Each structure stands twice: as C-alpha cells, then as structure tokens.
C-alpha cells in the first residue's frame, strides 16, 4: 500500500469516488445540454402549462383535450393510483385465501392452491396482461351480440357495462356518512381498548360498529331523499349508453395485476402463519380461549409481524407493475407521460417526473409500513 494510514486511504477513496461520480455526471450533463441546444429543445417544465391536445379514454376527474399537460398527467396519476389501490385490495383478499387454503388439511384444496401459486408466479406478468386483454377484446362478442344478464349487465368487447344508481345528492351524503362511520368506529375501538386496559370492563363492539358503518349511511341516504332511481344501459347507435362501464383495458390490468400478485401474497401469508409456533396455539387452548379469540389475539398478531415487511414489498411491486398498463393501452401515468414525451420532446423532464412520482409512492408506502411495523413489533425488555 502506498499510503500507510487507513484514515488517509479512506479519505482518498472517497475523494476518488466523488471525482468519478462528479465526472460522469458532468460528462452526461454537458453532452445533454449540447444535444438539447443543437436540437432546439427548451429545458424546463414550462411545457406543463401548454395545451395537451389529446383525449384520454378513462378519467376520474374532468379532462378534455384543451386542458394542460399537467392536468393530463394528473389524470394519469389518478388512474395509476386507482388501479393500484383496487389491485392491492383484491390481491390481498385473494392471496390471503390462497395462502390459508395452501395450509388447509384438505389435501385437494391445498394442492389446488399450490398449483395456482406455482403456475401464476412463474409466468411474466406482461404475457398474462396480453392474454387477459386479448380475451376481453377478441373473444367476447361484439356490442350488438353482447352477453346480457337481465337488463342489468352487458358484457361485450367494449367492456363490462352495468346498471348504476342515478347521480343524486343522497348517494354522496351516504358516502360521507360511511366515511364518518368508519372514523367513529376507530375512535370507539380505541376508547374501548383503553377502558378495558384501565378497568377490565369490556364494551360492546359488534352492535355499535354495525350501527356506525351500516346505520349511519342508511340514515343519511334516507334523510336526503332516499333516491332509488337506477340507470340501466341502453343500446343507442354503436354502443350502450348509461350505467357504469369497466373498460377492457382496466379490467385486464386489474385482473392481471391482482391474480399475479395474489400468488406472491399467498406465499407471504403462508410463511407468516407457519412462523407462529404451535406452542402458541396450544397455550391459547390451555388458557381456554375460543378458536376465534385464538386466531384474533394469539396467532394473527404474531403472524402479522412476519407478514408485514414482505407484504409491503408486494404492494410496492404491484404499484410499480401497474406501469405495464402502457402495453395494453390503459392511460396510466406512464402511458400519458409517454404520449407527452412523444409530443413535446421533453423526455428528460417527463422521465424524471415519472421516476420522482414512483419514488414518492414507494417512500410513502414504506414510511407508512415502517410506522405500522413499529406498532406491532415485539416489545422486548
């Protein structure tokens, strides 16, 4: 070694790394600036305010082609979050069922769940999406030959259209009441727990919670006019009108994402349940806890501790995988950023915005999960 002192060597290595990283960044930056100048591309985010000029098929907020690029990207972001959130819910339910089924003492059920997991997780998600999308757009009948379930549901190549309540302030009121009911239930549960810890007295749970979650919305709905009008789809011209529609793109993406991720979640859940020692269940039995209490108070809290970290990364994977939407034409954030890039040439800005958004989602989910994880962590002396 040329330099004997370890500290001096440490400083030298770090200086060399900094110089190398700085050099690479400087080299790329100067190339980029030169290239941009010679192509006449303006650097900066000014393009976000310009008119987008393209339509978006699916939107959760008001949008038309005269709106700005920033607005279009917001539509895309909401679409991404929409499909990711629904996907997470469905994948969690399906995955948990599969994970439990795989541990069932019914041999057939366990084998079927195992086959599902081994089949789904070893196929590229992109191919699964293409197959779902192909099935929804090519194999389903055309609009005029739509599969009808009464007057309520119509399934065709254009998507799944079904009857839906007509817009009315009563429904909005019921939704708000539901949110309030959920919040009240959480408060009720927290107070009940504190009471039980302090005095040992158990407050009733089932009835008040049902009242908050079901009763409140019903009351709100009834008080604000009790709307019952249902809008059924009607064939008019080339397509059905009215009701609600799930496009084949959205259906394929949601189904593909959730059935694929469910296979991974099943494994996570299975590992979590297996990680709880048999002695824990036996001890709970010896204490005379009911099967329900055993699951709720002994097995689940311990299994969750093992399940949560890998579950978080599955949720993150699902969110990141929703970017495959671009392959089947669902207008998620990536698809809209792609269109924006092609129209404006502002590739650097668009891609860095994409990366920043996904990074923030990743960080937000991991911060939340770390907080939750810290809450359920085993408290040691």
């Amino acid at each position, binding site marked *: 070694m040329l330099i004997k002192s370890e500290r001096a060597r*440490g400083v030298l290595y*770090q200086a060399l*790394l900094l110089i190398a990283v700085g050099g690479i960044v400087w080299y790329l930056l100067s*190339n980029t600036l030169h290239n941009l100048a010679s192509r006449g591309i303006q650097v900066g985010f000014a393009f976000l305010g310009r008119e987008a000029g393209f339509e978006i098929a699916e939107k959760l907020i008001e949008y038309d082609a005269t709106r700005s690029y920033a607005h279009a990207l917001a539509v895309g972001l909401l679409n991404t979050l929409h499909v990711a959130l629904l996907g997470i819910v469905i994948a969690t339910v399906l995955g948990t069922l599969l994970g439990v089924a795989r541990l069932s003492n019914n041999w057939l059920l366990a084998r079927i769940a195992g086959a599902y997991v081994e089949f789904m997780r*070893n196929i590229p998600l992109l191919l699964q999406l293409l197959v779902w999308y192909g099935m929804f757009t090519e194999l389903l009948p055309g609009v005029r030959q739509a599969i009808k379930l009464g007057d309520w549901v119509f399934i065709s190549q254009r998507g799944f259209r079904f009857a839906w309540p007509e817009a009315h302030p009563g429904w909005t009121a019921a939704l708000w009441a539901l949110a309030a009911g959920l919040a009240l239930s959480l408060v009720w549960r927290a107070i009940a727990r504190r009471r039980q810890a302090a005095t040992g007295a158990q407050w009733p749970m089932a009835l008040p919670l049902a009242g908050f979650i079901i009763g409140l919305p019903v009351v709100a709905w009834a008080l604000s006019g009790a709307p019952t009008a249902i809008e059924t789809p009607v064939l008019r011209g080339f397509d059905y009108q009215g009701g609600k529609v799930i496009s084949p793109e959205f259906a394929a993406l949601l189904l593909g994402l959730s059935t694929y991720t469910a296979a991974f979640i099943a494994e996570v859940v299975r590992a979590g349940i297996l990680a709880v020692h048999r002695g824990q269940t036996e001890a709970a039995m010896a204490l005379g806890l009911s099967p329900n209490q055993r699951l709720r108070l002994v097995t689940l809290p311990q299994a969750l501790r093992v399940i949560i970290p890998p579950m978080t990364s599955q949720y993150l994977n699902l969110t990141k995988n929703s970017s*495959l939407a671009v392959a089947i034409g669902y207008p998620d954030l*990536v698809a809209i950023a792609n269109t924006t890039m092609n129209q404006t040439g502002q590739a650097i800005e668009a891609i860095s915005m994409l990366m920043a958004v*996904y990074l923030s989602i990743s960080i937000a989910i991991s911060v939340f999960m770390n907080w939750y994880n810290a809450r359920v962590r085993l408290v040691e002396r």
Partner: protein
Amino acid sequence: MRDARAVSPLGWMRVNLFSTPLNSALTLVILAALAWLVPKAGGWLVWDAVWGPKPASACDAVRGEGACWAVVWNKIRFMLFGVYPFEEQWRAAVAAVVLTALLVVSALRFFWRKRLIAIWVVGIALAFWLMGGGLGLTPVPAERWGGLSVTLILAIFGIGFAFPLGVLLALGRRSRLPVIRAVSVLYIEIVRGVPLITVLFMASIMFALFMPEGLRIEQLLRAQVAIILFIAAYLAEAVRGGLQAVPRGQYEAAEALGLSYWRTMGFIVLPQALKISIPPIVNIFISVFKDTSLVVIIGIYDFAYAVKKSVETDISWKKYFIEAFLFSIVVYWIYCFAMSRYSQWLEREFARGERR
C-alpha cells in the same frame, strides 16, 4: 398424518379429504368442479385441438371447440428466432442451448469454484460470437437478433454483468466511509423505487441525449445496459443480506490476522456471504427472466415480442393469438419453474448443513 397414509388409501382419504363435515363438503364441491372442468379443458387443449403442421383452415373448422396448436407449428421459427436471418437460425438455436447450459452448469455445486467465472466468460463470449458472427460466420447486426436467444441474453448477460457491480454496491452500503455508503444507498434505493419500464424508457429515449452527438448505440445494447444497472441494485440487497448474516467474529478474526479490507472480504467474508445469498440471487434471476419481457414495450424482439408479432402480422393466424401466447407461457414457465424448484431445494440443502 404420515401414519394414516401408511395404513391404507381409505385411511388416507379419511384424514386428508373427509376429516370433518365441512371438509367433506369442500372435497365434494371441488371434485364436482373438477369433473366439469377437466373434460372441458382437456377437450379444448388436447383431444379436440388441431395438432401438427396443418393450415389455418383446419383450425377455422373447429374454432371454439379445440385449440389451434397448428399455429405453433407454422410460426415456430419466427417465435423462437424473430427476424434473425433464416439460413443462420441454427446459430441462434445453438446460442440458446449454450446459454441454457450455462444456467444448468451454474446450478451444479461441483462447479462452484473459481472456474465458474471462466465458464461464464467463455459461455457469454461464445453466445455473443454465435449471434453476432465474425471470425468465419456471417455477421448479423444486433437489430436482426430476436426470439428466445435474445430473452436468454438479456437475462444471463444481465445477471452476469450486474453481479460484480451488485457486490461492490453491497460492500459500499456496509462501508465505514460515509461518502461511499451514501452513494451506494442512494443508487440502490432510487433504482429499487422506480419501475423497470422507466429505466428502459430512459435507455431507449434519453440515452441518445446523454451521449456525444453522432454516437449511436444499438437499441438492444442500451436495453441490456439498463437491465444490468437495474438488477445490480436488487443483487446488492441480496448480497447485503448475506454479508449481514456472516458473524462479527469472522470479520474480527480476519482483522486480528492483519488482513487488509480487500483480503478480509475476498478470502473470509464474501465466500460465506455469497453462499448465503445464492437462493435470493436465484429468485432475482427468475424475476429478471420474466421482466426481460418488458422490452416488448420499447420494441425489442425478445421471445415475447416475437411470439406477439408472429400472430399479429398474419391475418389468417391472428385469431389464434391465445394458443401462441400459451406456447410462450409454457416456455417461460418451464424455465422459471425449474429455477424456483432449484432455489427451494438449495435452501433446504443449506439448512440441512446448518442444522447439524
């Protein structure tokens, strides 16, 4: 459970299928569903399907009742080799075999020594030469490469080149030097936080802006570099897991012997850490193998894209895309399932050594 199985088939059934009324009901429901589904699926997939190199009209005759496997016979060359020159396709086939053999060899513990590095260098060079030509073979430009060999190249070259980078990043993340640690953490966390598709977009669209004017680099090479840089972050986390599992005493003993940092790592820590990280590395490889299919989105002829194009571009076969996709699904599945079984076996194998 095991002794019940030993007693008799009936006893086995009573324990595993009809242990409680609920279980019995479940079993009956599942059996009924299978009895309905299996003949239907079997009919479509096998008995009523069109097998062999028949024309599309043979499929049209049984459309809806049987699968059209004839599409695979008719399009197999394009599916496996894409737009690779027809007369030279044996080279792409040999390259695919060489790369698959490379995977098999790496899975055998007998080869887990220094010579594995040499084998990889030779295997990668051989595959590259077969695909690209030169030295007696007709040169084939990279934009004509396609099919299964491209998928294998993207995945295997990807993991091969990402491996050294991943090890360095893992060491960097555990370094005592703050700047080195910060750079490694930043790189790993940023790359792991974004979807692969954004990195591929970067390679396919932004890369031209980063490079000096006039320098053009093959699309395939750019995607390959993107995949390497992407995997490296995931590999780094797998290796870090292994590094953390090596007991402190090993580090301290090496230090006490007066070994330098690189010798400590090279001779003492990494050999132990890498062994521990092999199962997670295999799992990373499985997801890389699946994720290479994302290059479809930037228009590179990998296996998935070749299969998609093979039916899309031919009006008479277009409606049999499901059969074509199912064929590619089977191929991907065989590779991934074999590797995942291997990884599970390896984990048990290692656990056995530890338990003693």
